[in-house]
């Protein structure tokens, strides 16, 4: 079953290559997303049918990451059906778009399912190569700049992560394996000096891919320039893949009992991410960049939760789920706004509430969700992070955390409410009203579903998810 998820996209890519048909592309992408989701579901129904292999498996640690990827990909693929209908490109270019989208999802899936650090590294690198084309898809001066920065910075980051892997093999001593289970079980015998050095490299390398400050520079450009479904996948799923690698290596550090240094690094990078977001959100003039900075903030919170440990681990998984669901909805809604107004400039977006009520409400609810407004699931996750800080007597960090979050909330609220409720009329607003008919119903439902899930999970967490989170925390 796992092999099917990894082989199917390759077969579909070949089919797309020969058929060069837009409708077939969309059908195959949606079909693959259903199979992808089915595999995640079958883990909870009957794990035996998954038939885990030596290199790939679905286990208590990666199931949440996989499930998030499946759900987001499924809903993005539905949105993508209507989105691609509005693109006026030839069949060949659309075939390139669709095949690269599948390769991108395949590489993320491979990265999540890998049992082996080396293999996960290869798949993470593959995500860079696949998504570079998607960022460059519009072929404008700005998209090429964004894609160049993305490929170059991430390739350097990934190369440094590989240095970390080599140093980890030095720390291993006589062991010659990069399998996570071997690493975790034999970590107490590792050389602590080399283990610490290797963690620094892996954290900075994968942190680059994850968008943690101070190695986040590619993220606002790439997220803002790529087509909206791709922005949603980049933000809601790709960052998680890199985080999973950091999480697994951190577990090795815990097992080796040398987390003091790693904890400090994670906390510094986490708070730096919050600081960078709070500073830059005030200056940004592009609403997609605003969302990209919000992603930096949220990966920062994930790093902080990981460093805090204890009850913050539960918060970390809840935050990961919540951020992915809400941010995907947010980016997809930004795609609607771009379709309506044909611009990403915040100043040019007025009277969204008048132009398209549904998009306006989605925009507001996405904002409320991402700002942890109850009953958003992010409220619980951030509450747990704060609780962990208080329990561990990090009072200064707690105040700083709340202070930075408040600044971010204010900066985002200012932009969102101006876009929706400033009803001044202009030619662009009139044009936007005529563009409403371009938005098919499948450009609303995915966001509604994503937001409903994010808000419902803030009130009620189903038993199976609760068990999965506890297993991931313990495992």
């Amino acid at each position, binding site marked *: 079953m796992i092999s099917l998820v990894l082989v199917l996209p390759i077969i579909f890519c070949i089919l797309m290559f020969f058929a060069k048909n837009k409708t077939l592309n969309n059908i195959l992408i949606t079909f693959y997303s259903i199979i992808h989701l089915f595999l995640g579901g079958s883990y909870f129904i009957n794990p035996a049918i998954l038939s885990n292999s030596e290199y790939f498996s679905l286990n208590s640690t990666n199931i949440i990451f996989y499930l998030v990827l499946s759900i987001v990909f499924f809903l993005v693929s539905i949105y993508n059906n209507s989105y691609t209908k509005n693109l006026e490109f030839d069949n060949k270019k659309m075939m390139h778009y669709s095949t690269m989208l599948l390769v991108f999802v395949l590489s993320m899936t491979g990265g999540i399912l890998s049992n082996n650090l080396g293999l996960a590294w290869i798949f993470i690198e593959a995500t860079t190569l696949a998504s570079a084309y998607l960022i460059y898809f519009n072929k404008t001066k700005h998209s090429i700049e964004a894609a*160049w920065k993305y490929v170059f910075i991430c390739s350097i980051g990934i190369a440094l992560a590989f240095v970390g892997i080599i140093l980890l*093999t030095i720390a291993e001593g006589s062991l010659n394996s990069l399998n996570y289970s071997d690493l975790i079980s034999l970590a107490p015998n590792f050389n602590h000096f080399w283990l610490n050095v290797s963690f620094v490299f892996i954290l900075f390398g994968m942190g680059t891919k994850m968008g943690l400050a101070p190695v986040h520079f590619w993220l606002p450009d790439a997220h803002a320039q790529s087509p909206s479904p791709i922005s949603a996948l980049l933000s809601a799923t790709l960052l998680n893949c890199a985080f999973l690698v950091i999480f697994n290596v951190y577990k090795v550090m815990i097992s080796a009992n040398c987390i003091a240094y790693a904890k400090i690094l994670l906390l510094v990078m986490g708070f730096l991410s919050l600081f960078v977001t709070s500073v830059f959100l005030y200056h940004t003039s*592009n609403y997609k960049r605003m969302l990209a900075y919000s992603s930096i903030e949220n990966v920062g919170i994930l790093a902080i939760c990981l460093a805090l440990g204890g009850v913050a681990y539960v918060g970390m998984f809840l935050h990961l789920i919540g951020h992915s669901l809400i941010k995907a909805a947010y980016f997809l809604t930004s795609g609607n706004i771009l379709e309506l107004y044909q611009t990403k400039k915040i100043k040019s977006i007025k009277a969204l509430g008048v132009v398209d009520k549904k998009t306006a409400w989605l925009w507001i609810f996405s904002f409320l969700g991402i700002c942890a407004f109850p009953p958003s699931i992010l409220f619980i996750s951030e509450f747990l992070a704060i609780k962990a800080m208080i329990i561990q007597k990090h009072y200064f960090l707690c105040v700083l955390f709340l202070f930075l979050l408040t600044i971010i909330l204010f900066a985002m609220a200012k932009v969102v409410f101006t876009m929706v409720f400033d009803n001044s009329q202009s030619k662009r607003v009139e044009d936007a009203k005529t563009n409403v008919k371009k938005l098919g119903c499948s450009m609303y439902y995915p966001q509604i579903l994503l937001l409903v899930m994010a808000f419902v999970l803030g009130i009620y967490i189903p038993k199976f998810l609760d068990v999965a989170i506890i297993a991931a925390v313990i495992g």
Partner: protein
Amino acid sequence: MVNGLIILFGLTMLYLSTTSRLIAHTKVLFVQGILLFLICVSGFSHASLAAIIFLTIETLLVKAILIPGFLAKVLKKTKTNRDTDANIAHFWCLLISSLILFGGLMFSMVHIPSLSMINPICFGVALSTIIISLWLITIKRKIISNVVEFITMENGIFLLSLSVAKQMPMLVNIGVLLDVFIAIYILGLFVSQINKELGDLDVAHLSDLKDCENND
């Protein structure tokens, strides 16, 4: 013999830091590829035939022939000749690179001997190569120079993996080869596209996307 080749590899980085002719940069890549091949066959030869064939392909074919050849073709196509606008004069570049190389060797001589599985000279040169490459990326102005320094960094990482006496899993080696190859291909394509779009290969042109200005 092996140590001599490794030192020679380190010296190529000094040459790279002092030259502004881009075609000379690609020649450095060719020399580094050949040196890595010789280091592999003379000092770090692996027992299995598959590993020897693989390493030969990786070093001789890809690192020494295909990548420099591809970049030389891109240079010809984009009619780019020199990277003259580096932020630091050649003399200082040479001095700083030499200091990094010396520092890398000193670090490994002091810290590595306790670990029997590592060749200290190889480790020191590899570490300095990575640091020099990263530093050169920050000071060079042409995109193509940045690509060359990215590849020298990858070569440094390759040397680092050779410095560890135990073999990295084959799977990882294949992945590295594939990634380097595709990354260079994509970077090369981007260089051509940037040249087509902007008419020049200066990194200064790639600073349009900012927060404080309205773009798009």
